[in-house]
């Protein structure tokens, strides 16, 4: 009985870690621009696919990861330069719609370039499961959870301690005021896309051994990541991770103790409840809108 429950928790942690990594990217761009970037799932997909292609071409894994992250960061920059920036001072909703278009475009390109097949990346440290009290967990799940934790710490330091991070926060808060105090808001927006593309790529590479990877893997990961970010409170790093893990664990427990047919419905009911009572999510900033 104990081992059964523990297995449900491990299963939830594995799925939750993927959602958390995806949610972090949403949170970052939201922090810097107020935009919800629906192409975030595609950054994750591109990271995984690029790493798989590079390793199968004979590039050693660490170098492949680095190159994949750099390549996707460049894609993030190009996306901002050619799709977001030309929109000028368009409102946030228009920018969000542009990101949806970009997501469809990136998927289409990936489908043509990489084909429609599925690939798997080799696990970083083998695939012998770690057995604890009769339940088993893959080492790769620990890599995902660890990566998520490191990213949260780095982001907290970046936004709390560096000038650039603070400039990003200021831009998101009030673009005009930020410009008045001498912040180049154009650069800030471009930078936020670069960082969150890189973040997405890291998430994609770390989760690729478990999720497998194909041109359409980003849709579901992106959607669940968005839900996790909303649940935890958009803009909060800790919230993103908490939201992801809560989502994953609820799904697993619902599948285990209620029914796997309803496992996708239960978390959504939970989210409706949480957002009803806490509209800004669990860890979202308490902001009062002045009219």
């Amino acid at each position, binding site marked *: 009985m104990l081992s059964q429950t523990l297995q449900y928790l491990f*299963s939830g942690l594995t*799925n939750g870690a993927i959602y958390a990594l995806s949610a972090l990217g949403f949170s970052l761009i939201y922090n810097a621009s107020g935009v919800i970037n629906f192409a975030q799932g595609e950054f994750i997909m591109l990271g995984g696919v690029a790493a798989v292609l590079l390793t199968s071409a004979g590039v050693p894994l660490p170098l492949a990861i680095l190159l994949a992250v750099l390549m996707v960061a460049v894609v993030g920059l190009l996306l901002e330069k050619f799709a977001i920036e030309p929109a000028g001072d368009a409102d946030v909703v228009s920018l969000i719609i542009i990101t949806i278009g970009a997501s469809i475009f990136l998927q289409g390109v990936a489908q043509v370039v990489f084909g429609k097949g599925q690939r798997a990346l080799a696990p970083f440290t083998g695939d012998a499961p770690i057995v604890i009290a009769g339940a088993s967990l893959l080492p790769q799940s620990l890599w995902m959870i660890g990566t998520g934790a490191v990213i949260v710490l780095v982001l907290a330091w970046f936004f709390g301690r560096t000038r650039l991070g603070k400039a990003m926060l200021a831009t998101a808060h009030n673009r005009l005021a930020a410009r008045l105090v001498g912040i180049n808001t154009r650069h800030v927006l471009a930078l936020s896309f670069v960082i969150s593309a890189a973040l997405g790529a890291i998430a994609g590479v770390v989760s690729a051994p478990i999720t497998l990877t194909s041109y359409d893997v980003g849709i579901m990961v992106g959607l669940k990541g968005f839900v996790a970010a909303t649940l935890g409170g958009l803009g909060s790093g800790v919230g993103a991770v908490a939201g992801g893990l809560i989502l994953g664990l609820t799904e697993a427990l619902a599948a285990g103790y209620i029914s796997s047919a309803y496992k996708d419905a239960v978390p959504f009911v939970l989210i409706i409840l949480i957002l009803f009572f806490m509209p800004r999510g669990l860890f979202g900033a308490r902001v009062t809108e002045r009219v």
Partner: protein
Amino acid sequence: MSKFMLRMTGIALAAFALSPGAHAQAPIKIGSPLAVTGGASFLGDPELKTLQLYIEKINGEGGVLGRKLELVSYDDGGAPDKAIGFTKRLIEEDKVDIIVGGSTTGATMAMVPLVEKAGIPFISLAGAVVIIEPVKKWVFKTPHTDRMAAEKVFEDMKKRGLTKIGLLSENSGFGQSGKKEALAVAGKYGIQIVAEEMYGPKDADVTTQLTKIKNTAGVQAIFVFGFGSGPAVVTKNIGQLGITLPHYESHGVASEEYIKLSGKAAEGVRLPAAALLVAEVLPNSDPQKPVVMGYSKTYKDRYKQDVSTFGGHAYDGLMIAVAAFKRAGSTDPAKVRDAIEQTRGFIGTGGVVNMSATDHMGLDLSAFRMLEIRNGTWTLAK
């Protein structure tokens, strides 16, 4: 299009119509709405390529009844509403002699009322049983059904004395249709489904569902009904949990990709598959061997891609149609329809086809081979 272009096209058409012999040698038109793009493009893409390849080949060999074949194909993206529009166009404007197409069950079922009304023979390339049950006068199909896949698996389980099983199905169209059919025919083979779980096609971890199945009292085997990457994740998870119960998959994973993705966890997995995918391991005495080897080679030579059963369904549809035209000796729709219904002993990529007035598919369980994965490759299960 500019006015000038329109006029030029008109002149060209008129010239073609007036040219001597154009009517006598009018091609036999084969209409084909297919899901060439979109979510079901893995069906429509090889289907279209197969039709193009073989129509070109047949025309090179002199055509049928002394006439060339002409393919009129539209991309319905797997959407039923588009399939309806294109079918209308095929019947009313293109005036096709037969329709070979309809990649998805949704598109096919949307097309059925139109072809029934117009009285045009229609060979569908989609899977579900509803297409041919109840029998529709003008509608035929070439692919095997998911019910047959479930029956083949249960037949093998019965032979091995496995009667209590856990069913894990994917919450996709393919998985749910398979689950429905599996539940419907389990009793016939004395199989009891003691645990029933579901997973999402993009789930990264299904150890929860597998733990539940493993801990169900009396469970003797696991049957997974899914398509694409989902079953590979399930298989890896079965390996991770160290579950040693006999593991069956559906025909939805019969691709090299599944073995590659699942790694050593796929060892010992059994599944039903069409002969086409295992052309090389078939014994030489197998009547389907020459057909599937021939199709595989022709397709691979031309497109440098692995064959899929879907392209094979299109091959079977086209060949059944061609044979029917020859037997009917004309393109008269009623005669061609009767000739298709009289298809007997036709050896296609999907199996040996014996149609009748009550069976518009004509395949039996021998269309599937029970395979076992041994040393990272397919072998025929004993």
